[in-house]
């Protein structure tokens, strides 16, 4: 019987399999950041042990960093201490750190692929749920908790039960104004925020194949938003071309050897999935969320559901969400005024995202009622944007181009959306308080966000293309 892509990689990493026990899985690459690692390093110290493979561990500071004046010490004391602690831990344990000020610093899920650290066939973990992003390269990549971070630091292994496998196929050509963020918001709105819990998802189909690596990352990134442990896409020529020549990519004979292996990484035609779903690209339109979980999404022209359209069990959550958002059931989101536009996060902060926004915005000005933050995913993305003159387009439009970090994706650093304010955000979570206490989030694509920035309200971007 054939194997799925997932099985091929998983089985190649099983160090020990024992009946009734979780598999001992070897981890090729471990990313760490300041928030979920301090307690793990403490654990190592308490046990008097070292990091087993510092050479396979990479660190950056992203969640807590300010995005303005990054050359100055972090003002917020607790944030500063956490970032300093990461620096000290990396020094003590001999781990490569791309900290604040380093030319490679950035959001952990942006820098891994960008530096060529992320490669097909790997197992990758990080104490962060959006580790699923790396799955776009045909890797098994998933988020872990701090106790597991400690396991991996100590042993380079993790105890895991094999999840079930789901394949989501999307075929056909995307319509004008529809981008990869819309694909994933659409899927989640169809299968709900818990629709893939317990599964590892492989995305397939002609639509997926036609996407760039960065667009694929956006999709894998949000796998966790439907409950999946991770998402992955089989590597192909697009993948290989993206990786070749990057800093940590294999070179010379190593490249040839790696390539030969990577080409074996696909699901065999007779491989068995526990669940298969199929969607048609023609049915996808620009999407937006109205509620407080990423499953509460609609096509931008649709109306918010009414309570009777929602399953009875979910009605209380639905009503609570609308109350939080200050929205009425059965109404349209079109023309809803917004206060902030946030373009950033590990979902949509790569150079293609910034280019997409810049293309749309060029020669236009933001609406006076909105504040617009563009936060590149990494120092390298920022540098590239400046090289291409994207910074000047933003400046003329009245957008703020900030320094790299997680920024307003989560209310942890200085960038917070004020209470009660509406924000169109290219990030991945619209939970209550996610962007700051009482902040109200509409998740959307960079294009839809750009259109909201220019008009000051939610609009159908297709009318402007």
């Amino acid at each position, binding site marked *: 019987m054939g194997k799925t892509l997932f099985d091929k990689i998983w089985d190649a990493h099983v160090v020990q399999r024992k009946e009734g026990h*979780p598999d001992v899985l070897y981890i090729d690459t471990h990313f760490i950041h300041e928030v979920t690692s301090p307690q793990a390093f403490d654990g190592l110290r308490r046990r008097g042990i070292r990091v087993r493979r510092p050479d396979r561990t990479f660190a950056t500071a992203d969640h807590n960093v300010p995005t303005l004046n990054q050359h100055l010490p972090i003002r917020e004391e607790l944030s500063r201490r956490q970032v300093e602690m990461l620096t000290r831990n990396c020094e003590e344990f001999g781990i490569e750190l791309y900290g604040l000020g380093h030319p490679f610093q950035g959001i952990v899920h942006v820098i891994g692929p960008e530096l060529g650290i992320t490669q097909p066939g790997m197992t990758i973990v990080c104490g*962060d749920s959006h580790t699923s992003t790396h799955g776009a390269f045909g890797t098994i990549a998933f988020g872990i908790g701090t106790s597991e971070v400690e396991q991996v630091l100590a042993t380079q292994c993790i105890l895991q039960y094999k999840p079930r496998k789901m394949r989501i196929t999307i075929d056909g050509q995307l319509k004008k104004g529809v981008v990869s963020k819309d694909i994933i918001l659409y899927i989640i709105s169809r299968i709900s925020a818990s629709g893939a*819990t317990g599964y590892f998802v492989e995305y397939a189909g002609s639509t997926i194949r036609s996407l760039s690596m960065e667009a694929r990352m956006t999709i894998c990134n949000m796998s966790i938003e439907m409950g999946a442990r991770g998402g992955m896409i089989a590597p192909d020529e697009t993948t290989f071309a993206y990786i070749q020549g990057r800093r940590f990519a294999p070179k010379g004979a190593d490249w040839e050897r790696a390539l030969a292996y990577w080409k074996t990484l696909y699901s065999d035609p007779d491989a068995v999935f526990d669940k298969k779903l199929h969607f048609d690209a023609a049915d996808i339109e620009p999407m937006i969320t109205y509620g407080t979980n990423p499953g509460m999404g609609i096509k931008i022209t649709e109306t918010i559901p009414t309570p009777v359209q929602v399953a009875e069990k979910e009605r209380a959550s639905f009503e609570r969400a609308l109350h939080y958002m200050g929205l009425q059931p059965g109404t349209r989101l079109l023309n809803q005024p917004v206060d902030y536009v946030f373009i950033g996060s590990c979902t949509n902060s790569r150079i293609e995202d910034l280019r997409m926004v810049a293309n749309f915005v060029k020669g236009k000005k933001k609406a006076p009622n909105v504040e617009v933050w563009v936060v590149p995913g990494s120092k390298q993305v920022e540098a590239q944007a400046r090289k291409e003159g994207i910074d000047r387009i933003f400046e003329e439009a009245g957008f703020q181009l900030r320094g790299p970090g997680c920024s307003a994706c989560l*209310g942890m650093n200085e960038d917070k959306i004020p209470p009660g304010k509406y924000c169109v955000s290219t990030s991945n979570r619209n*939970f209550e308080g996610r962007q700051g206490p009482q902040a109200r989030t509409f998740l959307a694509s960079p294009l839809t966000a750009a259109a909201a920035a220019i008009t000051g309200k939610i609009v159908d971007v297709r009318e402007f293309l």
Partner: protein
Amino acid sequence: MSKRTIQHIVSTAVPLPIENIDTDQIIPARFLKATTREGFGKNLFRDWRYENDDESRPKKDFVLNNPVYGGCILVAGKNFGCGSSREHAAWALADYGFQVVVSSFFADIFKNNALNNFLLPVQVSDVFLQQLFQVIQQNPKTEIEVDLPGQYIRILATGEEERFDINPYKKECLLNSYDDIDYLLSLDEVIRAYEQSHERV
């Protein structure tokens, strides 16, 4: 870490009949700046608990502020613990004093994190979950029994019970206070052998 175990618990329970409770609600991101595991309990469900983040203004309608309900069992709506991988969510629940969380569905990473912190996630059927909400709300003094060796949860007053699943390895860990890291460290030889035969990356 102190050696903890879970065996048999009888307690009243706190009902939180909301679905998709995400880890940003359990512990908002701005409280993740600590560098130790202690003290997260006071910020558990912070934004549902207090008006404008003000500890002197507890929200009257939130269940943790209602003296009628108490106990070390939290009963919550479907898909509990979705969202971020932050283990701080499990630390906050445990630090507050919960030993068991009951729901009809748990997010994967949360479940692992809970188990790694001796917080027992008990997954029950939707029907049983609704029963639990009903009896607890009718009588907040209702006692619930959770038995890990026998893998059952029972409403003492009515005798209604349901079996729950837990993987055998984790069960052993919880009952005997084993630790994954000790176990993995004991496999050093096997890991070394794997590394030697797989130097491909």
